[in-house]
């Protein structure tokens, strides 16, 4: 009989659990209730502002109409799977974001290392300067790239003066390189923020122990520091890569490479292909979730601490 119906015990247990949540008697039950109460506001918001829109977006990708969700059609998904241009965009996005992330994280390691280990003059100013671009929206970053690498750009003209070639030939703001600089410009501060947190927790005594045992600074870094900051590097990589994928304003202005965000804008702006935009958005969101959870497996505790 217990096969068909939940046994009396089971029932009692589940009723008990609900009741103990509402009228807790043990400290542990009270604690559970608190956890739920404290997480609730966030999840209410995440539901209305995140989960529901994502579901509606999934529905949008299957709509037969582009102006509203009406009817059902797989056309958008078919286009997405068959048109080579989408594969190209996916590829562009991935390789570009990956390279930019690797470079940014590497620079982040160097910056955090120097800030933590060496005492430089005006260190507070340096730290503030490195963090500044976190606040800048992508469009402003694009402008910064033009200031540096445009035809009238500082770097361009400095190089032009030294090499004697024409500034126009040297300008790279709107090329893939310029865009790359834009990505790095946005990402280095983010990577540095994570890594600075990690570096603060590096056991400097262990590093000193290594030095006293005969390791040069480089050997010390390789044998002691690097293994210790490895989880931080992975966390920085995850965060930075996610940011790289989300960059939009910079590409919108510089237009140097067809990446996924730009394509979404294009689908909407030209032809209002909301189904395709929705489909791309869904693939993108799913990829992000999968990437994050796979990435987190490489961080020892399975949680990111930034």
């Amino acid at each position: 009989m217990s096969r068909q119906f939940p046994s009396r015990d089971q029932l009692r247990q589940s009723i008990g659990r609900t009741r103990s949540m509402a009228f807790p008697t043990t400290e542990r039950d009270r604690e559970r209730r608190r956890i739920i109460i404290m997480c609730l506001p966030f999840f209410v918001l995440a539901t209305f502002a995140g989960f529901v829109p994502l579901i509606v977006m999934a529905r949008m990708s299957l709509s037969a109409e582009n102006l509203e969700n009406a009817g059902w059609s797989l056309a958008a998904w078919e286009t997405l799977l068959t048109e080579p241009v989408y594969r190209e965009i996916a590829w562009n996005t991935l390789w570009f974001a990956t390279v930019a992330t690797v470079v940014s994280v590497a620079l982040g390691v160097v910056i955090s290392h120097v800030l933590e280990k060496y005492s430089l003059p005006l260190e507070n100013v340096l730290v503030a300067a490195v963090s500044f671009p976190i606040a800048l929206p992508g469009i402003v970053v694009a402008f910064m790239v033009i200031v540096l690498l445009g035809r009238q750009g500082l770097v361009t003209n400095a190089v032009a003066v030294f090499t004697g070639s024409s500034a126009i030939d040297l300008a790279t703001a709107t090329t893939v390189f310029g865009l790359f600089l834009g990505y790095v410009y946005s990402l280095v501060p983010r990577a540095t923020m994570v890594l600075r947190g990690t570096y603060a927790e590096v056991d400097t005594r262990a590093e000193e122990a290594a030095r006293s045992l005969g390791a040069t600074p480089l050997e010390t870094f390789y044998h002691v520091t690097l293994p210790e900051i490895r989880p931080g590097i992975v966390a920085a990589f995850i965060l930075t890569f996610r940011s790289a994928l989300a960059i939009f304003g910079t590409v919108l202005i510089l237009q140097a490479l067809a990446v996924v965000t730009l394509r979404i804008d294009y689908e909407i702006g030209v032809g209002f292909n909301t189904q395709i935009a929705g489909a791309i958005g869904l693939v993108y969101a799913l990829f992000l979730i999968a990437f994050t959870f796979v990435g987190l497996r490489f961080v020892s505790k399975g949680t990111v601490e930034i």
Partner: protein
Amino acid sequence: MTEYDTNSKAEMETRQEELRSGTGSKWTSTRRSASERIGRPTLVWIVYLTVAILVVPILVTFVASFASTATGVVPRGFITFEHWRHVLGFGEYGVRSNAIPGLTFSVLVATGGMILNVIIGVPIAYALSRYEFAAHNWVNTLAILPVVPGVILGIAFLRTYPDYRGSALVLIVGYCLLKSPYMVLTVQSSFQSIDIVKLEESARSLGASWPRTFLTVIVPHAKRGILAGCIITWTLAAAEFNFTYMVHTGDPEPFSMFLFRNISNAPYLQSAAAISIYFCIVVGAILILQLLGNRGFTTLNDDR
């Protein structure tokens, strides 16, 4: 044990000689190791270079906004406030819609997002720092690495809440979700620097109910973190572009759209002035953060 002694003493002595010839001979040399001689300056220069790349365009843009002409590499004709007057709404030409209405609107919306962030961010940061529970890692990941970036969120919002497109409410909610990681992280960082369990237990043993403990003991201890989180989420929301661009219908247009129009279609110096308005806001934010113990625009509190 004794055997070891006799046995190893001799060994030890010989090995000591070996070691000494390896390292000891260099005692008197004041030569610093290669990585010290080359590595350190290289790293320092990489940092300086990176910082220069990050900062120089900002400074140049700011300075240029006071120039009267910029038809060559170097802006000329200092000092004029013409472009600032333009962007602040006293000019006559160009993108004549000035920054003020948009900025006012964005300031209000960002403030709304910030307040909402306090409401959702502080409790979850507390729950995550204070308790261990089954889905802890999962919730933590969700709270500090949200699922959707701005552009996607924008697209999804278009269809989900068509009646509220570009309304302040949608922007507030969107900004709140997009920037909530910064609030959660800064507050968590605050909580981690105090012994939250013991504090709470002290207060409760002294007779404070749990909600009262949270409000009168825990929250004040995280005050700096909450304030820093507010500054950061506010500043970021004040110029959020990706999401805004997707959902705005504007009335007035958010500040970031004003920036966008200035960057995508306005004379160079005017763009510079428009952007510089925002630079001033960020510098202000950094100065306040500094007072709160965060060095720079970051969720890390160095003042632990």
